[in-house]
């Protein structure tokens, strides 16, 4: 999954979509994850880094992460791919 080119992410958790003019806000964890996604980290890398740093178990992380990705997709912040692709 890739973040679309038009998306600008600021360090204070503010997200702007220059194509639609919409803006979004992220909580600190959302910001940390979207930054990793934006630089093309895969699921495994992100999981490893979060699990190492934070007090969270693998399954809880996985669930939250995929829900977060689904929301990014829902808000059209990601490049639209094939609907049959796994997230």
């Amino acid at each position, binding site marked *: 999954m890739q973040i679309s080119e038009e998306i600008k992410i600021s360090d204070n958790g503010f997200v702007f979509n220059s194509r639609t003019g919409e803006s979004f806000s992220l*909580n600190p964890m959302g910001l940390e994850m979207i930054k990793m996604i934006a630089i093309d980290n895969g699921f495994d890398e992100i999981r490893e880094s979060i699990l190492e740093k934070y007090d969270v178990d693998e399954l809880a992380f996985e669930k939250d992460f995929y829900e977060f990705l689904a929301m990014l997709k829902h808000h059209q912040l990601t490049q639209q791919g094939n609907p049959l692709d796994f997230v």
Partner: protein
Amino acid sequence: MKKSTYEKPIISKITTGVPGKFGLSTKQKIIAEIDSIPVAKFVEEFGSPVFVFSEKKIRETYNDAKRAFETRYPKVQFAWSYKTNYLDAVCSIFHDEGAWAEVVSGFEFEKALSLGVNGANILYNGPEKSKQDLMLAIDHNASIHIDHFDELYLLIETTRKMNKKARVAIRINLDAGIYPMWDRFGFNYENGEAWNAINRIMLAENLELIGLHTHIGTYIMTASAYGIAASKLSNLMIATHRKFDYWLKYIDLGGGFASKNTLKGAYMPGSETCPSFDDYAEAISNAIISSEIPHENLPVLFLETGRALIDDAGYLITSVLANKRSTTGRKTLVIDAGVNLLFTSFWYNLGVFPSREVTDFMEDTTIYGPLCMNIDVVREAINFPQIKTGDQLVIERVGAYNVTQWMQFITYRPNVVLIDLEGKTHIIRKKENLETIKKNEFNPKK
């Protein structure tokens, strides 16, 4: 190295111009304990979901209401509205505080008797009274509130056959400026029907007319409507005295005071908008005292207050079964209590609260019950924090009507627990099981 605290990643759209949603700084209220007992402890001991009632709150609310009326009017008597909550333990607390019983069926009448209520302290309302019910009421000297002419004639016939007297009142419907006007119960004031009924009863030798009753509706937000109703009943009392030289003994203004719950569609929370007991008491007392009834003949004022006396004392503890996203990206929660247990969620935006500290981030959320039906929605839209699956929520102000109108549908009805004045917990209605359901079934095929 100690790891940092994790929180769920969240992204939300910023909608300019619309206040609230993201950045709304209102602090989320938490209900971590009920009468100093941690919420988790109830679930551990009694399962989830579980209804919890506070005896302390019941008594406090009752005494607030009583004080509001007794400081303004000389003779006040509450009659506990059984239909609102007829769990034995709850009724017994109200009776212990001095309340009479207000019942609307043979079943409720029998339940009041079984709790030791003196028949003469039962007000018997409602349009559904069979001949057997009437005989039971006559035998126990209850006040029978006649709903319609057919009942009046059945009562005349029954008292003749029994060769006994019945103490009666009539239910009156009237225009108190409330929309919709409840005109399906009782005799109408404005068109003279109530006056006709009074005349007929005064001539019936086995009927002793002792009072006038009305119940103008439920969740009445304007206290002045009660002033209008009290004036109209006072007028009938005066007319009865003029014609028959007889003072009726009581005026019963029914129930209907609003509880602090918030009606669906209301802009402001009910806790901000609903009148206080003092407001209702002021309107009613002024109307009767300023009528032409002489001070020494002032009637006893009966009140059948239901929801306003018990809503606040009841809680439902429930657990989160699932966190989901709808196809539109909307956050949804599935909890283990639905409309089967929360009949009042059809009228109210019930207050749902986390039971432990949450992050500040709030999101517009829909809360679903566990039933396999589309209508099982506890809250359509509530600004809600992130709650982990398995965590407990507390739904407040569910003491009225839910434990009488609940449905045994798909699952068993849960334990109901009372916290007594010493802080001890008691199961006052046991969770149902297969046997509860099957014991009244008969299977000719097996």
